[in-house]
């Protein structure tokens, strides 16, 4: 190619080689800027100066608030400000487990979501895992290792601990159930170094009975895994498998799969519950029978005999029971649904569980609804072993003790003895994250990471693995416990991360991947891993029940049943205000625990309690007495009282200390197991007044069919509109119309999106995960007991719990006013219905009309919007809201010492949990559910970037995504293919939306506020309406 050498002139000067040009040719700017020859400052200069001076001074005078924001000097490539990153990990606090995906913003974990790969647990979160994010930012956590409760550094700790362990005669490692293979082998490493090491596993709420029974009957001490989704008939005798259970998320999901109706499906499972406390399981039962805990054995035995009678199995001798009617009914149906039924018992009595196994075996449920070979690892604890340990501890034969993330001083029945014994120990080590009841007594504190800072793997169910990966680098100078074990085991210096990888390195599946890293990355990406290479054992039932005998009639006196609290579980996260603020699904009380007593008992003792009022009772259980308030609980079995665990922490932290009393001391150890129910209880109610903070005080919905619409399956099968309260109004020309049809206005059409939600009352088990999810997602302040007492809970989403009233009390000659009273009082053994209630996003919103400053208006997508910074707080909108879902900022809840318990807004660490996409509301403004508008926006933006319309599932509200039972369905009603459109059979008309699904209804339809939230009728699988049955 011919080389051209064109010369481009900078100008004529270059062409003519102008002298000036040549002189400056190398300079970028031809000529310098003219120098200003200095002259004495003129008057104008002076004025300029003065003007600037004044301006500067006045600017300096108005002090700008100091904002702590640290910009990225070098931005991590993976982190984009305002763009969330998601990491699959696993919730593991105490012995609770949940596979999660964690949402992080600017490197801060701010929200837990269910892991969509974790099908084995319904892909959902739990109340506790939702709230656990805040525990990460808990100021009360240990900032680093300690020796003798004084700050130390790891090198010293390691050295001293290693020496101490070496010199110790015996090493005991106490922990809750360990179901992490890597952790197990890390402990094993320690065992190799110190052969004397004994690993004691216990669980605050143990499954001893079930474990021992399985050992007896199947020869393996492991829990069977249930599949409720396959069951047509379920019988629970004292087992709260929906509410308080190691796999309640899974159970919820499976159970509700059998309760869904519509689109042709017209049958559902039936659940019989025989229990003493009103539990979530009882609340969801079709038939609930109130029994005393001491009767459980007898009921199981009788049920067994009834079934065995038909199927020719060995009988057991069983005492008579009060209610055979339901038992027979249940037995009959169990037989008709052989192989498609489940019987579960809650008792920790080995024999009761053995008989339950035998019963399930007779019914051929093993292999269908129950899988003993695919066992659940979540509970392994051995009460007997633990009990032995406490004895050893007392007679100083336990040697050096390591408390691995467990807190027996609080959550073991013999806690006090342990406490005193620990002080006598030469070497005691705790890995707890805070100086809790146990850790505050030990010599060495080697605080573990929070699970969100940790690496780990888990095997909740045989062959099912899930993984933990750090979602944030450790906030404090903590170290993962497993790593500590490796250190102390001496020879190993690798990090636990490497250790974990080395363990998985040998996995056969690695072969299917280009290299190990891609295999491991894949594990972490999906978070869970179904490993079919793990071969299941082949266990068979082998036991002769005839040896068992259940003599001994029901105990006479008052009996107590101690249960896991719905909010706090066993009390592992005792310092988490979100859990304390969550009101109990049944009693609706929060920030407290109490004993639940039956209405009969209250009447018998002449106790009348007013609005949120209670009285202190002296509760005495085998010898020790505590003062505790009482709550009258409809459905509580006569002669029994209930008590929740998880309260009464003394060293949990500022938020959780000394709230309620601990129930653990009342747990009775007998026959090699801890028993969570016992007799020999006395309750003596004092005159001392007490106030219980409740978010709901009404018992029933007073027969208001415009609030709740329910029916029974029998009716539903006849008519899909069963239970529907179909209001018709007559117009001037006498036509009967739906209330929606008549209006003064032209109305508006929502053409782009029209967001809506469907809530299936049949699917909602009332667990409350959605309420916590909402609190986390939307920066909802915690207001504490005092304000709840003032009726000022800030929850945007509440679950209204309604009991049925006793229709039999209403007769022809009942007075008009008495009918009203009866309708407001719960029946002795009521049916329960849960109604999640949040802003209904009315298209004709009464709140919008009355706001004087138009701070709340309707969006073009059907959202009822709240403009916080325009709100002047007249509260007129809240008054005019027929659903009373608007929440007012009565005080400044953030940066306010009066609300220290609201840790997510009152200390710098806690504030890291706040969702940056949601405003923290100022004092004096109104707030309410926004349908998670921030999620809608980001979903739309994501779709827009990908240059497409948002498809169904892109956008899910926090509550819907947390729901373990898919009771809440959120979506775009304009999209004919969306789940909600299909579910509700949405019919779009020009200016209004109609749902053609027979079960779908609006709460308060006659007001014609045209909500975008639909409810679906509650259908119970009963043969007769409760009234008729009561008569029968």
């Amino acid at each position, binding site marked *: 190619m011919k080389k051209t050498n064109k010369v481009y002139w900078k100008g004529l000067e270059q062409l003519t080689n102008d002298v000036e040009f040549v002189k400056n040719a190398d300079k970028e700017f031809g000529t310098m800027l003219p120098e200003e020859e200095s002259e004495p400052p003129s008057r104008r200069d002076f004025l300029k100066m003065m003007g600037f001076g004044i301006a500067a001074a006045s600017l300096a005078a108005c002090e700008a608030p100091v904002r702590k924001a640290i910009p990225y000097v070098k931005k991590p490539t993976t982190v984009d400000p305002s763009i969330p990153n998601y990491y699959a990990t696993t919730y593991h606090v105490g012995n609770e487990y949940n596979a999660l995906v964690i949402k992080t913003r600017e490197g801060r974990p701010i929200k837990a979501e269910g892991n969509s790969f974790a099908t084995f647990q319904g892909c959902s979160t739990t109340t506790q895992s939702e709230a656990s994010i805040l525990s990460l930012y808990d100021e009360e956590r240990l900032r680093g290792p300690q020796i003798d409760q004084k700050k130390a550094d790891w090198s010293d700790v390691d050295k001293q601990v290693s020496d101490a362990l070496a010199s110790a005669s015996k090493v005991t490692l106490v922990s809750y159930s360990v179901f992490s293979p890597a952790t197990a082998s890390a402990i094993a490493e320690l065992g190799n170094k110190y052969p004397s090491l004994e690993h004691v596993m216990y669980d605050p709420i143990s499954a001893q009975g079930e474990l021992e029974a399985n050992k007896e009957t199947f020869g393996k001490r492991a829990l069977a895994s249930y599949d409720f989704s396959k069951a047509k008939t379920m019988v629970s005798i004292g087992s709260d498998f929906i509410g308080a259970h190691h796999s309640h998320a899974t159970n919820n999901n499976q159970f509700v799969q059998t309760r869904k109706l519509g689109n042709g499906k017209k049958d559902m499972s039936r659940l019989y519950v025989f229990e003493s406390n009103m539990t979530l399981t009882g609340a969801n039962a079709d038939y609930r029978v109130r029994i005393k805990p001491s009767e459980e054995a007898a009921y199981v035995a009788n049920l067994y005999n009834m079934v065995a009678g038909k199927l020719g199995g060995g009988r057991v001798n069983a005492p008579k029971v009060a209610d055979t009617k339901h038992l027979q009914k249940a037995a009959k149906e169990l037989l008709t649904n052989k192989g498609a039924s489940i019987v579960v018992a809650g008792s920790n009595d080995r024999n009761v569980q053995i008989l339950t196994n035998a019963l399930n075996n007779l019914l051929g449920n093993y292999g269908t609804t129950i899988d003993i070979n695919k066992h659940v690892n979540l509970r392994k604890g051995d009460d007997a072993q633990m009990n032995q340990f406490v004895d050893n501890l007392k007679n100083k034969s336990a040697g050096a003790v390591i408390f691995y993330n467990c807190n027996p001083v609080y959550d073991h029945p013999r806690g006090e003895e342990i406490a005193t014994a620990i002080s006598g120990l030469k070497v005691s080590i705790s890995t707890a994250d805070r100086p809790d009841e146990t850790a505050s007594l030990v010599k060495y504190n080697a605080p573990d990471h929070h699970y969100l800072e940790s690496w780990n793997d888990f095997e909740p169910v045989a062959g099912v693995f899930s993984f933990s990966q750090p979602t944030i680098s450790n906030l404090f100078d903590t170290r993962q416990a497993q790593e500590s074990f490796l250190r102390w085991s001496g020879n190993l210096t690798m990090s636990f991360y490497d250790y974990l990888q080395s363990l998985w390195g040998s996995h056969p599946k690695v072969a299917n991947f280009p290299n190990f890293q891609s295999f491991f990355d894949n594990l972490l990406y999906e978070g869970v891993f179904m490993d079919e290479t793990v071969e299941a054992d082949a266990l068979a039932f082998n036991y002769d029940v005839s040896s068992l005998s259940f003599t001994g009639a029901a105990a006479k006196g008052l009996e107590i049943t101690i249960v896991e609290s719905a909010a706090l579980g066993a009390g592992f996260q005792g310092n988490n205000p979100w859990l304390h603020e969550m009101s109990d699904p049944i009693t609706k009380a929060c920030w407290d625990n109490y004993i639940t007593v039956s209405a009969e008992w209250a009447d018998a003792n002449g106790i009348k309690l007013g609005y949120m009022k209670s009285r202190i009772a002296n509760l005495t259980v085998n010898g020790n007495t505590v003062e505790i308030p009482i709550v009258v609980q409809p459905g509580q079995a006569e002669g029994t009282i209930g008590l929740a665990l998880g309260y009464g922490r003394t060293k949990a932290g500022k938020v959780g200390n000394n709230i309620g009393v601990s129930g653990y001391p009342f747990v009775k150890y007998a026959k090699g197991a801890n028993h969570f129910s016992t007799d020999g209880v006395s309750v003596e109610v004092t005159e001392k007044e007490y106030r219980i903070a409740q978010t709901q005080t009404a018992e029933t919905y007073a027969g208001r069919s415009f609030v709740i619409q329910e029916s029974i399956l029998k009716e539903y099968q006849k008519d899909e509109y069963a239970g529907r309260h179909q209001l018709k109004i007559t117009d001037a020309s006498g036509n009967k119309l739906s209330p929606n049809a008549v209006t003064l206005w032209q109305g508006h059409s929502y053409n782009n999106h029209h967001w809506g939600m469907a809530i299936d009352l049949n699917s909602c088990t009332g667990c409350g995960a959605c309420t916590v999810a909402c609190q986390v997602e939307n920066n909802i302040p915690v207001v504490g007991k005092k304000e709840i007492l003032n009726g000022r809970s800030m929850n945007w989403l509440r679950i209204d719990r309604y009991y049925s009233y006793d229709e039999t009390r209403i007769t022809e000659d009942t007075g008009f006013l008495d009918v009203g009273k009866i309708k407001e009082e719960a029946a002795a053994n009521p049916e329960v219905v849960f109604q999640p209630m949040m802003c209904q996003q009315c298209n004709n919103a*009464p709140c919008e009309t009355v706001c004087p400053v138009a701070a709340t208006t309707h969006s073009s997508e059907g959202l009822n919007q709240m403009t916080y910074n325009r709100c002047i707080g007249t509260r007129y909108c809240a*008054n005019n809201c027929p659903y009373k879902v608007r929440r007012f900022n009565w005080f400044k809840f953030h940066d306010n010492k009066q609300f220290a318990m609201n840790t997510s807004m009152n200390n710098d660490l806690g504030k890291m949990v706040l969702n940056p996409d949601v405003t923290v509301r100022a004092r004096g403004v109104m707030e309410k559910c926004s349908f998670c508008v921030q999620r809608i926006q980001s979903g739309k933006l994501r779709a827009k970037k990908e240059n497409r319309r948002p498809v169904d599932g892109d956008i899910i509200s926090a509550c819907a995504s947390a729901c373990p039972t898919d009771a809440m369905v959120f979506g775009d009603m304009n999209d004919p293919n969306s789940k909600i459109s299909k579910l509700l059979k949405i019919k779009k008309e020009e200016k209004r939306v109609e749902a053609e699904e027979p079960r779908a209804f609006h709460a308060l339809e006659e007001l014609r506020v045209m909500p975008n939230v639909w409810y679906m009728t509650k259908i119970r699988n009963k043969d007769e309406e409760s009234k008729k049955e009561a008569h029968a």
Partner: protein
Amino acid sequence: MVVESAVREPLITGGKSVHDVTEDISRRVEQKPAPTWLLAMAVSLGLLAVGSYSVGTLLWEGIGVWGNNNTIGWAWDITNFVWWVGIGHAGTLISAVLLLFRQRWRMSINRASEAMTIFAVICAAMFPVLHMGRPWLGAFWALPLPNTYGSLWVNFNSPLLWDVFAISTYFSVSLVFWYIGLIPDFATIRDRATNKISAAIYGALSFGWVGAARDWSRYETVSLVLAGLATPLVLSVHTIVSFDFATSVIPGWHTTIFPPYFVAGAIFSGFAMVLTLLIVTRKVYKLEDYITLQHLEMMNIVIIVTGSIVGIAYITEFFIASYSGVEAEQYAFINRAFGPYNWAYWSMMTCNVISPQLFWFKKIRTSIASTFIISIIVNIGMWFERFVIIVTSLHRDFLPGSWSMFEPTIHDMGTYLFTFGLFFTLFFLFAKFFPVINMAEVKSIVKATGEKVTAKEVQVETAEKVEN
């Protein structure tokens, strides 16, 4: 000039001459403050101080210092607001409506009652501001002002905004009406003034009034037209206040009967308050000859009438509720009468419906003591009426799940006291420095009683009627 049939007993007794009128009324303004007055003043200032503490706390801490909650967003705040507005109805009503109806007995009481109106409205206006979560913004954001955020207007669909316009209009028009009436009397005091300062002050206040026939004729027209405008205004104010409830969806609020029923109630309580104040004033200021028993009786009759209207309204509500067939509506009223707040309902009933019926007895109607007592009872009852409407309707509405109870705090009471302090402080200042009776008007009827009508006067009468 006006005609009295000979049979009617005179409105002004004691054979007062026009000059006596000037003397009797002006003397109060010119004398040194009486010890009784000083005492009364001290008490009201005390109340004001105590109340201010609560108001301060309220503004500093937030609405949370009151007892209101999520379910019961309004309680004492709006109860007090409506109560004061109600009281603030009598004054303008007396001067406007009675003027239109040529009820000359109004003349000796309208000045004081108009003053009361204005002060009551000031007290009422405190609450819409104080009850806001963010009054420092709400105070002006509620007005349709152009602003830096661009187009950010107010919501004219909101009854609260209607209130803003209604109350401010009512207040300013009443103020003007009252002041127009005061001008000639200020002139009187100006001309009697003995020292320079008061001469200057009352001179300014009198706007240079000289009483020229031309001005008087305009003055008459103005007051007549103002009366014509103020009458529908008076009725509109409480109608619009009642819209706050009537246009809502809450059972117990959503009631078309509210406008007339509220207006009647307002007149009822307003007259009661006027009575309470005048009975004291006439005693203290020895104005028995101007505010005679006949005046009191007249007002008591108005109280019987309005009280009965209110009573009928209460019963009608129940009937309509049961007739409506709306479950929630029926419950709301059952709950009023037999629910946890039944004590409020029954005290309302006794105070508002039973007690005024006593006035059917002439003996009670014409006894100062009983009038005084009943007038106070009526206003207690009217407070309970608003409490019942607001709190008992809200605390149990549609969804039992959100039902709640209300317990007042000391700051609820403190804020209420504050307005009492304010009211009486203002009223006593008025009673000392302003002529408490409209001298000019009273003078015009001193001679009137028992005169023969002349043809020309009839013309005048009719001419004026045409104007209305």
